[in-house]
């Protein structure tokens, strides 16, 4: 098999069919989007903590609304749905305390997502190196 034809297989935690449909085997582009998504999600997660502690629910909602599609771009569609639920909860919650349990759960999910996106990015880069 030639190096150029080497096919990339996404890890099981990602929606591989969706990623295939989006990137059509273009792993270079997929890696670029994974990387830029990561570069936005990490600082947003840090900012979210500040907003939650200060009780600024509307800014928290806006922040998660903004980063929500990034989980879709990297094929974590279930995480995107969870962010959507949290965003909806923000619109009805009167105070940040009401969101406490959901927020803490989401923080854990986002943290895990960051790790698996990072790992997948390393895999993709290795794949591209092998193909080069």
């Amino acid at each position, binding site marked *: 098999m030639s190096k150029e034809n080497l096919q990339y297989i996404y890890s099981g935690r990602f929606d591989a069919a969706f990623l295939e*449909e989006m990137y059509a085997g273009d792993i270079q582009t997929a890696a670029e989007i994974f990387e830029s998504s990561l570069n936005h999600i990490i600082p947003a997660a840090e900012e979210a903590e500040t907003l939650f502690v200060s009780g600024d629910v509307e800014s928290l909602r806006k922040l998660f*609304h903004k980063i929500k599609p990034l989980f879709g*771009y990297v094929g974590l569609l279930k995480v995107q749905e969870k962010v959507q639920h949290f965003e909806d909860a923000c619109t009805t919650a009167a105070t940040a305390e009401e969101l406490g349990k959901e927020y803490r759960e989401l923080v854990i999910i986002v943290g895990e997502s960051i790790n698996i996106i990072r790992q997948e990015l390393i895999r993709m880069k290795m794949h591209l190196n092998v193909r080069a």
Partner: protein
Amino acid sequence: MKYSSIIVEDLQPAADFLRKFCERSGIVDVQAHFLNGEEALVYLSENLVDLIFLDVEMPGITGFQLMDQLVYQPQVILTTSKTEYAFSAFEYNVTDFLRKPFTYQRFLEAVQKVEVKKQQEDSNSTDHIFIKVNGKLIRLKNEEILYIESMGDYVKFVTADKKYITHNTIKNLETKVDGQKFLKVHRSYIVNLASIDDIQENTLYIRGNHIPISKAHKSKVMQKINII
């Protein structure tokens, strides 16, 4: 045909992703990307584009507020991650509504809708319009109409020798009249470019009638008239 477009999107990876799709399609040319609506409006006041890929929630004005301030009507594809905006999108008569993230296939379907709408607009571009006055449909040739003035829920079509009042709005007519011959110069006025006698600062004159030019429409007027 290649469509000129801009992307208005505050999330850089989403804009990068969309730009890749446009490049892959070979029929959509992205002229610029803006992270907010205000900067996009400045660009659009000086440049004509066929299509806007528009996010809704952004810092500053929303995508809907941007559409309210447009001085001409390019096609719009809304790109948002919130399905709740679908109804408003329908009200704004946007060409399509893409929920982020979307696949290349879904993107192509949206671009096909742009093509269909463009063909419909081209075929609607005739040398006349019909207006309903007192239960009668009256045919008005484009060249007869000097200007159209808003009167609340009604508009007045002014010709050289007659005035016709009909139930309609300037906003609706803006998309119905021939965009090559007519131009909205103020929220209450659409003028026939061929009828303009002269322009002095923020007023234009047609057969002795004074028509104000709003600040938002001024640059568009100056672009459209043939200044030597």
